[in-house]
């Protein structure tokens, strides 16, 4: 997030695209409702009628995978109506003219044809977002989990640049991160092309700095992204995989393919708190600790570093992940001895100035938002106050490219996947909470009433949902929250895992799979 959660309260316009905030980030949704009470207007763009739609001013029910057309259409209207922020564009951006040409064809009429959203609504949304200088954009995987996810993000960035809705309080671009410490994992350098703090591995000075700090010579070659690891394993190139606290057997697309790929590995180590579907395939399983059993930090979606404190002892011989990694590293000939998590955090802070000013002591009561370069720095609530780090930022022309696997004659429905309020990701934690299981323990597919009628499907009837990759049997939940031709399956349930059928088509840059669009067919059970 370029803003903080607190700032939502002061926004005039909240533009939510591809985020079911009320179910996936409920407490952020509370903040949005608080803003609405103060007069903020919500725009929601989503193929599903998500719960927050009830509080929205405008609901843009777009066809899955048509986000670029919608966003460009909105930008087109903003330009035409002269709501663009000329001063901002001149002072802080490049490439405006070329980008302007690229959106000329995205008239509200054309955008409406592609997205299925009435053109009046596109215009209304454009006037509302473009008319405000305190407007925040919020998105999650509804934007990124597409073969053109990077394009979607660029289109959003263009919109913010056009209106200057970034770099000030109460206005910015806010991806809501789905996992407690996905921000921290990125910040700590668990990415194949950057060291901690997004410092690029292909810059010799940077590499030298880390080699000196870590007393080791480091590899030059950029590594594999998670989805590429599976691919490489499948091709027999990757021989060993060490997985800490992940469950790709449920969270990766096309499970069948993932299983075969993991099966080809010579050696698989899984470190987890449960024997997950992935751990069951491992050669060695290492019992680790959960958040209540260790000390450290989580960095939340607004870049706030917060303390995690040990409250209970782990079960049996389960050990802290830190201990396990250090022991393994020592056995591999690379000593990593730390007396505490705090010492590790300090080392990270020494290597990345954005965290340098943060210490455990400073965040004992309240977290601090990075960047926080010095011990007396208060932290940074919203980014880019003093300009963009690289000076001017470029508009990126973005073309509309349809999803990789549209519905067709054989597979006439579009499947989109996601989370529900009660379960969490692969369910390894929530599905072991008896109360949650009692309330939301059964997989289901959301299907539109009209489609159900045509197929003769009754509420709660078990049906077959299949794609070119696999099929599952699952109960039908008839609802108006999906439109005709679209079905939704929550990803959590292993007994009817959505990812058995999802497509493993990837975004060419981020290598993120297209979980939000694939073609399926629906049949009654015989």
């Amino acid at each position: 997030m370029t803003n903080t959660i607190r700032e939502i309260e002061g926004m005039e316009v909240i533009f939510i695209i591809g985020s079911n905030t009320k179910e996936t980030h409920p407490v952020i949704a509370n903040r949005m409702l608080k803003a609405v009470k103060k007069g903020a207007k919500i725009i929601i763009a989503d193929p599903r009628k998500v719960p927050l739609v009830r509080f929205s001013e405008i609901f843009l029910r777009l066809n899955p995978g048509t986000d670029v057309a919608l966003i460009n259409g909105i930008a087109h209207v903003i330009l035409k109506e002269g709501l663009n922020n000329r001063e901002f564009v001149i002072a802080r951006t490049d490439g405006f003219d070329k980008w302007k040409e690229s959106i000329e064809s995205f008239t509200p009429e054309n955008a409406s044809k592609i997205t299925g959203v009435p053109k009046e609504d596109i215009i209304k949304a454009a006037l509302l977002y473009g008319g405000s200088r305190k407007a925040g954009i919020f998105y999650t995987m509804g934007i990124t989990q597409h073969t053109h996810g990077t394009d979607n993000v660029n289109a959003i960035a263009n919109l913010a640049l056009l209106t200057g809705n970034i770099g000030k309080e109460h206005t910015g671009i806010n991806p809501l991160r789905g996992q407690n410490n996905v921000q921290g994992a990125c910040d700590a350098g668990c990415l194949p092309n950057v060291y901690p703090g997004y410092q690029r591995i292909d810059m010799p000075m940077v590499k030298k700095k880390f080699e000196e700090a870590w007393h080791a010579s480091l590899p030059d070659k950029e590594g594999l992204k998670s989805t590429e690891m599976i691919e490489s394993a499948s091709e027999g190139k990757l021989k060993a995989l060490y997985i800490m606290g992940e469950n790709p057997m449920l969270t990766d697309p096309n499970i069948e393919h993932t299983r075969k790929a993991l099966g080809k590995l010579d050696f698989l180590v899984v470190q987890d708190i449960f024997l997950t579907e992935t751990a069951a395939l491992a050669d060695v399983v290492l019992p680790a600790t959960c958040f209540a059993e260790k000390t450290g930090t989580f960095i939340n979606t607004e870049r706030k570093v917060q303390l995690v404190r040990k409250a209970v002892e782990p079960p049996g011989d389960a050990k802290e992940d830190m201990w396990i990694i250090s022991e393994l590293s020592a056995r591999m000939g690379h000593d990593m001895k730390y007396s505490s998590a705090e010492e590790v955090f300090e080392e990270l802070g020494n290597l990345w100035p954005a965290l340098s000013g943060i210490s455990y002591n400073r965040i004992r009561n309240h977290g601090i938002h990075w960047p926080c370069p010095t011990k007396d720095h208060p932290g940074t609530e919203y980014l880019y106050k003093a300009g963009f780090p690289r000076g001017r930022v470029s508009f990126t022309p973005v073309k509309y490219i349809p999803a990789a696997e549209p519905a067709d004659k054989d597979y006439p429905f579009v499947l989109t996947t996601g989370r529900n309020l009660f379960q969490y990701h692969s369910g390894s934690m929530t599905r072991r909470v008896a109360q949650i299981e009692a309330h939301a323990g059964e997989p289901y597919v959301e299907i539109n009433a009209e489609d159900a009628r045509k197929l003769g499907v009754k509420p709660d009837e078990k049906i077959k949902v299949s794609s070119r990759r696999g099929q599952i049997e699952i109960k039908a939940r008839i609802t108006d929250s999906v439109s005709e031709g679209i079905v939704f399956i929550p990803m959590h349930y292993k007994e009817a895992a959505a990812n058995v059928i999802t497509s493993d088509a990837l975004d060419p840059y981020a290598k993120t799979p297209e979980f939000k669009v694939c073609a399926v067919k629906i049949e009654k059970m015989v």
Partner: protein
Amino acid sequence: MVKVTIDSKTIEVAEGTTVLEAARMLNIQIPTLCHHPKLTPFGGCRMCIVEVKGVPRPLTSCTTPVSEGMEVTTSSPEIEELRKTVLELILSDHPNDCMICEKAGDCTLQELAYFYGIKENRFAGERRVYEKRDGNPFIERDMEKCILCGRCVKVCEEVQGVEAIDFTYRGFKSKICPPFEKDLKCEFCGQCVAVCPTGALTGKMWALRGRQKDIKEVDTTCAYCGTGCNITLHVRANEVIRVTSKEDKWNEGWLCVKGRFGYTFINSPDRLKKPLIRIETKDEGRRTKDEKQEGISRPSSLVPHLSSLFREATWDEALDYTAQRLKEIKGKHGPDAIAGLSSARCTTEENYLFQKFVRAGLGTNNIDHCARL
């Protein structure tokens, strides 16, 4: 700004400030039951009554805005007698079962009864008797303990935007319930439980796990989504028995169903307790055949009995074996034949160490985590 005098202390406050808020700024305690600082004032319980000079009857301080030159007295024999009477009336049909009440020790009503020394009740008489018939697994609703303060109704509407419950009926029969007294249709965020000043609303899973004695409270950060709500784990005998959130933290004490009630996985009997080493050989062909026999690909079908797949090992054995295999593979195929998948569920420090191990220890940049999924 408006100047107001409360108990002979003078303070200047913004227009629209209530007498109660101004008094709290002066650290003057006024007892309340229905008031909650994050919700709109209600004026229902009448505990917060005060005397205002020139006004013949007492006023509820939570709903009375200050005015210029206002002189307020928050405590006098008359006011205290009235408050005591209010409490006695509230307690007149309240179950006296503090001994076994989940809320004992953390109950505002119990605390006020203690401060006002209410041992016997002049108004004891008819009692409200309600059948508990709520099927939901999260929230225990004991309506006999409800004092109709309305906090739950307000939090559900004002904070959560759900409006699952409201006041129904009138007079002695007044009751808070879902539409048509059906089962709750709600998000089970438990915001109502957090603001309930009595034992009317509690977490079902808290029952008989411990109340206030021998509880250690540990402030930490929620481990579910990326919002990062501050939570407090209540621990008794090495077990997390309850999760709450403090109002003075950035998330204002609000949580969701997962954060508030999704903690029992910590003590799940399924937790891994020993390192495991595979005993049967891996055979891709065999797996595929199994699946074919099953008809449908289900990951769960691949989790047969643990004992048939793995044997327990010591840490030394498991770690030595792992290191040996990784070394072999590195020696034979080079470091890029190995990759590490780190976790967005682990701490920043663990992630830092993990990538350091992969880069400096194994010698490859094949490191990623699930940000893309």
